[in-house]
């Protein structure tokens, strides 16, 4: 039984079958990549996983509980954190505050009227956040306003915000999309480092094969809304079905 179990999920938009009979199982402590050409249904699948879309049929079980019909904040509280295609951070807040917020969310749940405590007096929380910033090598930028960061730093910060919650599952939505090669490599290194320093389960939706084969321990190939193959990376590379699906597509 995997940490995340997707069973027979179907989703239609009008006449278009976006997802057809998707079955997927993400095992604990693995990096599981979901790949496929454009329009294969990767984003739709992701939106189902985070509660943004409700499938027509099928079930999504995370850690023994269904995620269907739950709001994004509830799903996060269950232990799923999400990294967006373009980094979603609190631009008006400082880097440190960006990390403090998930710390509070983890400790206090989805709402607490802590209007009379002082943020800076919550030593354990501040320590936790600063430790995380140290881990991702951003501690010296902690007082900068987040919107002034470089794109790479924003990605790093977003990653820190997710990791500090110690999620059971980290969802990454094309974390290197639009990045230059050097930045992509940095991100890969960061993810490898994270993977090496703590037990974590990751599901990566990715287009870039380089990233996928650098990180993934298990790969699912999606085409036209249906999983073609699920296997270890080395078996995927030469798989005829995959080549067929990607034929004519430009690899990066």
């Amino acid at each position, binding site marked *: 039984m995997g940490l995340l179990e997707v069973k027979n999920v179907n989703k239609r938009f009008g006449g278009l079958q976006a997802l057809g009979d998707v079955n997927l199982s993400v095992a604990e402590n693995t990096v599981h990549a979901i790949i496929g050409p454009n329009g294969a249904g990767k984003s739709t699948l992701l939106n189902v996983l985070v509660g943004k879309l409700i499938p027509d049929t099928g079930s999504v079980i995370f850690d023994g509980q269904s995620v269907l019909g739950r709001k994004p904040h509830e799903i996060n*509280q269950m232990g799923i954190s999400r990294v967006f295609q373009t980094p979603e951070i609190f631009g*008006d807040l400082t880097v440190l505050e960006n990390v403090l917020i998930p710390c509070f969310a983890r400790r*206090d749940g989805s709402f607490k009227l*802590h*209007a009379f*405590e*002082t943020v800076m007096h919550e030593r354990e929380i501040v320590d936790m956040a600063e430790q995380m910033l140290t881990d991702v090598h951003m501690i010296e930028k902690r*007082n900068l306003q987040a919107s002034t960061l470089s794109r790479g730093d924003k990605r790093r910060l977003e990653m820190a915000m997710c990791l500090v919650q110690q999620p059971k599952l980290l969802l990454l939505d094309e974390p290197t999309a639009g990045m230059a090669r050097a930045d992509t490599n940095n991100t890969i290194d960061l993810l490898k480092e994270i993977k090496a320093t703590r037990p974590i389960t990751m599901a990566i939706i990715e287009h870039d094969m380089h990233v996928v084969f650098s990180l993934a321990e298990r790969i699912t190939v999606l085409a036209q809304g249906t999983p073609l193959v699920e296997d270890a990376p080395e078996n995927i590379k030469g798989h005829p079905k995959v080549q067929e699906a990607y034929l004519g597509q430009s690899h990066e």
Partner: protein
Amino acid sequence: MFGLNKKDSVLFVLVLFLTMCAPFLLNPFPQGSELAQFNAGYPDLMQRFVIFGIFAIGFNILFGLTGYLSFGHAAFLGVGSYAGVWMMKLLTMNVIPAIMISVIVAGLFSVLVGYVSLRRSGIYFSILTLAFAQMSFSLAYSVLTPITNGETGLQLNLDDPRILGVSEVNGSIPPPNLFGLSLRDSAEMTFGNWVFTFNTGYYMCAVLMLIAFYISIRIFRSPFGMMLRAVKSNQQRLNYTGLNTKPYTLAAFVISGMYAGLAGGLMVAMDPLAGAERMQWTASGEVVLMTILGGAGTLIGPVLGASFIKYCENIFSKINDNILHQWFAFMPDGIEDVIVFLVHPFVGKGWHLTLGLMFMLVVIFLPGGLVEGGQRIGRLFRRRKPDAASDASQTKPAE
């Protein structure tokens, strides 16, 4: 101090000093001098400064932190006022129960309005709050006249029952009091031609404003305040960080509604009349203007903005041609007339024009409001100290 960091403590002590010494600071010109016209140190206006300060501080907790622009906050001030007057009519002239009920009723009303309005965001939220407030105003002015006394406004009568007090004293309505201390009492201090008035009601309001200001600092520095700023910055991320934005915004809405109720309660404690106009959309617009003019999202800005607008309203509107002629009497006749002619449109009945121009100038040249103006002046002086950045950044967010 009181759990505030150094910078906030300094700010708080500054505000403490300003409010406590207001009778001196606002009366800088001696009686009888031409400039005495600009003195603002009389009880009514000083009370208005702090009461509208409270109102704006509360509004800033919602607008400055979450970015939700409510165009209906005057409604909470209005229902607070009505509740307060009813308490004084029915129960006692001691203002404490009146103020408490004002806060409670305004809080409950804001739960209702906030719960519905916060289902939408952006301008749709603004229009929803505007709609609620305008409905409250229209109904209070007309069909709710039995409760609100409509056009005239709800006021005390000689035959009010007043269970824990007397209906009348010598054919007069007893003045509002704080445990027997009449809020209308004033002490006067004369120093040469300077006269300073120390009014009980003002000091009660001032103390409550200081408490309100202190609470607002605490909220700004609290995790809750940080969440509210996060709402303004990126709601999507906040949701995906496991936080439910709705109760946060609702809590901010209700807190600011209660501030408005407190302001409404204090208004009737100082002057027991609740007029329907204080719920009109222009009154809601006024608090928006106060907040933005002073500097939205800053701690002290709303208080400055409130004082600025109330000063304009009460001082400029009273300057008439007669006074102008007195001012410029030293000039040769022809020039005097020209100057009076030129100044005339901007004062007295033209004070709205001055106000409108001020808004435009401040918004155009000082987008961060009066606080930004202050900061710019401060920066001119602080140029010499280049490296204060690392220390300042800790408190940066709220400034």
